[in-house]
């Protein structure tokens, strides 16, 4: 069993590295190794490679990895296969921030970080604090309260976004819709550097708590009786995952599907044990999003399909196939 797990682990590691190595060469303009080394003839291609493709690949990988392990953590914490990184309202908070920025129409940036990013990050933090506050006031830090608070906050911000769209002109309204589809149209390494600390801290929390995630699967009473300090664990996971997701959403928009389905796909591949599942979810989520982003650049080039459209179109059927082909012993939960 352990041997089989290790093989799966290495296959996924290998595939992730392969995807990361190949993706930057593909797109509207195909770049070859020759273009890079004998680059004196074509500076545009070198620029595209280093200033656009590499940062874009990196950010897609980081975003996918972060969304995937956040979804995995929430699914274990709520013991609910439908939980996603966005269940607790982070994405709608961020989207509200972005929509506000677009509606206000003043363009500014702070230390090179765009105002839109700043606004959506503030929105994300706002929703995290609201959910935390509501859960805190209701005694006991119950998972059910957290879940319901998250869903309520989600609806609240979504309605505000609809309202902003309604009172905006067509151009702004479209910009908001486009933001909601998510994407990695970034230039340079600044967004990567901005997002990195959030993802490092958030992932560190989740990786540190893999044994605890296993414990939570047993239910909170048993987890507590086995020596897990359930309240503290939930709090750490909530903030770790939410901050990570907040960072990702602020930069890339709410990219759907990866956060919910990638952990399920990984569970089918390697089982419930979070000591393995977390590594696999991280790698698979990252590689999957890089793959989808590459497809989105190629299919109708020179135009791009929003990556959020591709993730579900490709991932949905793949997941169903995996679920059905596994036989009855393969369980997602």
């Amino acid at each position, binding site marked *: 069993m352990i041997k089989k797990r290790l093989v799966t682990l290495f296959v996924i590691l290998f595939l992730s590295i392969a995807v990361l190595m190949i993706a930057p060469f593909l797109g509207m303009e195909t770049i070859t190794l020759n273009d890079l080394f004998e680059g004196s003839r074509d500076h545009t291609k070198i620029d595209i490679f280093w200033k656009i493709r590499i940062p874009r690949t990196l950010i897609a990988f980081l975003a996918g990895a972060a969304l995937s392990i956040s979804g995995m953590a929430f699914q274990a914490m709520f013991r609910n296969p439908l939980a996603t990184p966005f269940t607790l309202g982070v994405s709608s908070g961020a989207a509200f921030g972005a929509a506000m920025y677009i509606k206000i129409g003043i363009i500014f940036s702070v230390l090179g970080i765009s105002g839109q990013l700043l606004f959506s990050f503030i929105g994300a933090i706002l929703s995290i604090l609201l959910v935390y506050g509501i859960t805190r006031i209701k005694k006991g830090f119950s998972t059910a309260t957290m879940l319901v608070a998250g869903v309520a906050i989600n609806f609240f911000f979504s309605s505000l976004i609809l309202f902003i769209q309604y009172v905006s002109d067509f151009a702004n309204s479209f910009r908001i819709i486009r933001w909601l589809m998510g994407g990695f149209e970034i230039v340079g390494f600044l967004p990567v550097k901005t997002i990195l600390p959030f993802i490092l801290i958030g992932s560190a929390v989740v990786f540190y708590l893999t044994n605890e995630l296993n414990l939570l*699967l047993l239910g909170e009473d*048993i987890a507590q009786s086995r020596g897990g300090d359930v309240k503290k664990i939930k709090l750490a996971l909530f903030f770790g995952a939410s901050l990570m997701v907040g960072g990702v959403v602020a930069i890339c928009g709410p990219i759907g599907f990866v956060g919910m389905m990638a952990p399920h796909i990984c569970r089918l591949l390697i089982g419930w044990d979070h000591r393995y599942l977390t590594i696999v979810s991280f790698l698979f989520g990252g590689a999957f999003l890089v793959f989808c982003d590459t497809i989105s650049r190629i299919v109708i080039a020179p135009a791009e399909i929003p990556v959020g459209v591709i993730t579900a179109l490709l991932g949905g059927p793949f997941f169903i196939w995996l679920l059905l082909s596994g036989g009855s012993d393969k369980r997602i939960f």
Partner: protein
Amino acid sequence: MRKPVIQINNLSLYISNKKILDNVSFNIYEKDYLSIIGPNGAGKTSLLKCLMRIYSYSEGDVFFRGNPIKKLSQRNLAKQISYVPQSDGRLLPFSVEEFVMMGRYPHLSPFTSFSVEDKKAVKESLELTNINQMANRSLNTLSGGERQTVFIAAALAQGADILLLDEPTTFLDPKHEHDIYRILRKINEELGITIVSVTHDINSAVLQGERIVILKNGAVQFEGEATEIMNKKILASAYNKDFFFLKHPKTGQTIIAPEVPGQ
């Protein structure tokens, strides 16, 4: 007199302003086999949950070997006290061995895997409860009795010397019920593990337990030797119901039978 391992002093618990436990005080002694009985809603489960710190109690104190349990970390508490909750029939995606292995959690540190010692403890508790032949079966394929045995094995693997059980035999047939009691008796007598068992089965409480505590409306109504409760008044006032005492035709043991309805 044996030493108390757990001292419960004036413990009270409120849940949304309702008093669940009312000034409960009694001692649990080393190697005790204590049964807690009482009508539904008496606070038996809540009391166990307070001891395991699943609920944090509102007033009073619980001392574990002289130290207040509020000061212990949850991990340290779990090394000393383990808990088998009421069976909720929830489906869990683990194999028997994996599940029992998770009983070793309090001995794990982050990023580490199970040590040789952990594996040894798991093997021993599987053997002790006689379930090593089903180690690789999925929990979802077990019968109620097998499942309960696995939960006990997992609690044993935890390495604690106090075991709290919440209605360990409630959904079991007579044979499995007997098996569970035999295991509990064995670990109590041979390993010296203190057992605190909440039950509705008064006869087993008397037969198995050395001491009995009766809870009613959150308060201790009786505490004493098992034989002392063979008393119509004590039982009748605990359950608001009449009881008969019969002699077992073969063994001569006294059997407690509730009054038959409609007579």
